[in-house]
């Protein structure tokens, strides 16, 4: 991989050395990492990451024992005291390390795994911007986006178009609503780790219902 030779940072180099599974790999054989972040806003230039939760998993099992959850201190002080984070206090954030201090650990957890998120434009862009700011080079990685898998079904199918044409509201593809469709229990907590767990469960359900363990990775990643 070209990107691997260009990497100068050791942790990044190690991450790229492991590589990602080939596009033809059956999804049933792919090691994955569910990821969720809490951020201070939606713009990666103005806002920052506050917490990251990751859980490694595959189609059989989600391994909570190998989970990670980090609270990190944004480089800019939180000027909007009104921002509320579930389960995280502002003082916790103020005492937390900088993302740079946990980045090696995060990259190690990501190595060799396909990242799975619900709505890829947060995790991928924020992580890329944060890594670039700290290590001088960005990180771009393939993800499986459970929201976009739901959108394929509920926003882009002929049936969804027909519904839209008939003026029906489109089905919600938010994480809790998507989960309900697969009989998954509602989770009360909004927490990066719980949302990562919720995303991992959703992907297991989506593959079980709509795809199969033999489906090649390229059909589901972005």
């Amino acid at each position: 991989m070209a990107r691997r030779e260009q990497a100068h940072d050791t942790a990044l180099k190690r991450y790229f050395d492991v590589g990602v599974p080939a596009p033809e790999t059956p999804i049933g054989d792919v090691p994955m990492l569910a990821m969720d972040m809490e951020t201070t806003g939606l713009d990666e230039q103005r806002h920052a990451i506050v917490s990251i939760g990751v859980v490694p998993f595959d189609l059989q099992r989600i391994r909570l024992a190998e989970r990670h959850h980090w609270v990190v201190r944004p480089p800019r002080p939180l000027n909007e005291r009104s921002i509320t984070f579930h389960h995280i206090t502002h003082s916790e954030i103020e005492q937390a390390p900088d993302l740079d201090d946990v980045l090696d650990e995060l990259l190690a957890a990501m190595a060799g795994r396909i990242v799975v998120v619900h709505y890829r434009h947060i995790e991928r862009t924020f992580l890329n911007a944060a890594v670039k700011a700290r290590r001088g080079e960005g990180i771009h990685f393939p993800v499986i986006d459970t929201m976009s898998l739901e959108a394929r079904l509920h926003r882009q199918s002929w049936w969804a178009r027909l519904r839209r044409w008939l003026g029906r509201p489109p089905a919600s593809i938010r994480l809790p609503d998507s989960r309900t469709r697969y009989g998954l229990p509602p989770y009360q907590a909004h927490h990066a780790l719980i949302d990562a767990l919720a995303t991992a469960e959703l992907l297991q359900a989506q593959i079980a219902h709509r795809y199969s363990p033999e489906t090649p990775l390229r059909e589901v990643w972005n």
Partner: protein
Amino acid sequence: MQVELLEVRQHMAQFPPFEQLSDDLLDELAGQVEVGYFKAETDIYRHGDAVEYLHYIRSGAIDLYRRNGDLYNRLSEGDIFGQFDLLRDRRVRFPARAIEDTLIYFIPLAAFQHLCEADDNFADFVEVERPRLESTVDQQRKSHEMLVTRVRKLATRAPVMVESDATVQEAAQRMGEHNASSVLVLGAPQTPDDSHAFTHEDGQLRRMVGILTDHDLRNRVLAEGRPTSTTVGELIDERPITIQSDESVYEAMLRMLRNNIHHLPVLYRRRPVGVLHLSDIVRYETNSSLYLVDNIFRQPNVESLAPLRFDVRAAFVRMVNEDDNSQMVSSSLSSIGRSFTRRLLELAEEELGPPPVPYCFMALGSMARNEQSIVTDQDNALVLDDSFDPEQHDAYFLTLAQRVSDGLAACGYSYCKGDVMATNSRWRQPLYVWQQYFRDWIDDPSPERLLHSSIFFDLDSVYGDEAFVERLQDLVAGRASQRPRFLAAMARNALNRTPPLGFFRTFVMEKDGEQNNTINLKRRGTAPLVDLIRVHALACGSRAQNSFDRLEDINKTRLLAGHSGERIRYALEFIAMVRIRHQVIDIQEEREPDNNIEPENVSDNERHNLKDAFQVLSNAQKFLKFRYPMPSQKR
């Protein structure tokens, strides 16, 4: 406490055995859980898969199956499974299948073991949970309740009643108003102190004289073209079969089964309090033998009857799992066998037309004794009216017999190896010929002659003119007790089959010192017991056919000393039950059930009791030989 695992631990904290764990243990546990999703209708485990986890159902529902496909248990949110496999051989015993979209928490073996060590309550729960688990299954089957549930629980509607001088039209109107499929018919007491009379609401003395069903309205009024002014009293059968309100649903079921009726008036003492309909019980217990019997009578031809043979096995397994005793199981199986026979005769008559002369279809052997097992062949005969003329009539009865015999074979009752079937012209004879057969056997006996005839001394009617068979039963009961030589010959034959001498962990010891690793419980246990009970019953003039009923008659006399009658009853019940249980195991392990057991598959407790039972049989045989000696006078 780790806030990030709140969702996991809070859920588990609601359900046993986790609800009582300390917070520390619970936190630790939540952090080790693995999660897996199973779409509805997919397998979670197959039989024999390795088990490395305790499973907790976070959401959804699953079924656990026995290997033969029967449901073992249904579990849902908050339930656990796999603990027994973990404690046993770590192989799946009951395959699991998701019946809804299901999320499972997998608790790794190490975490499970840690919990067992750290928390005694948890250990107790997963180890002694079995009874609770099985009682849950019982609840689901609703089966066990049939024995303890009283009839009044199911017959909740007050009965609709009319006077016997009401017209059928009035009766039909009352039934329509109350949306009832039957009315109870009341009449005046026959005498001032009629023991069946009760005080009606209006203060009048009344007695229940019968029941009129919509079946009667159709078949006996409309079909026969009777006027609507016909009185109810003209139609009803004056001796209705009833049940007391505090008898068991099971008893009600058997009563319907034996009489092939669908409505059973329920009485509190003499006062009618309701009517139990077949469907009430069917709703209560869908896979029951009653349902099966009902089903048998609905089948339009032999082709549709034959597949019911598999339902017979299912009903059998169910009865045994419900802890029914051997008498209940075998009497239900006999009722099922009789129902097949009756239905086949009805179908044959529909096709061949009404019989040219009256007849009775007679059961012999185990069906006549109401002691059928799941492994059984057919033994039957035809008793024809004395006006029977072979030239004119035998073609009809031969065809009839063939239909029934072939039909029974198709339904799983194999042909009799000794050819004791109505298809054999020797066993398709008018009553006077049968009377002569019995007189010959009884008056001029020898062990050799009687060797294959003992089966005829268990006889009962199945269909047709019962009086024919009753005449034969009377003849046997009246004559046999007066013939010592006959009793001696029967007794001699009852000693042909003996119990094994010893019964060890892996083999049985025979009298000649030979060791066998399998034993036929029918040939070496139940059959010789039945044989010796029959000899005593004949000696005391009993008309009973069932071995337990015969024992009761015998025990009224001084034929047997002390408690030996009770011991024989115990031995028969016990051996019969072991045989039945092993047949259930055969069925559950998908083997053809037979009468053999292998000593190595017998539990210590069973072995101990079997030894005792064989000893009882052995002693009873010695007594039989002594009690009915061969008279010395020459033939």
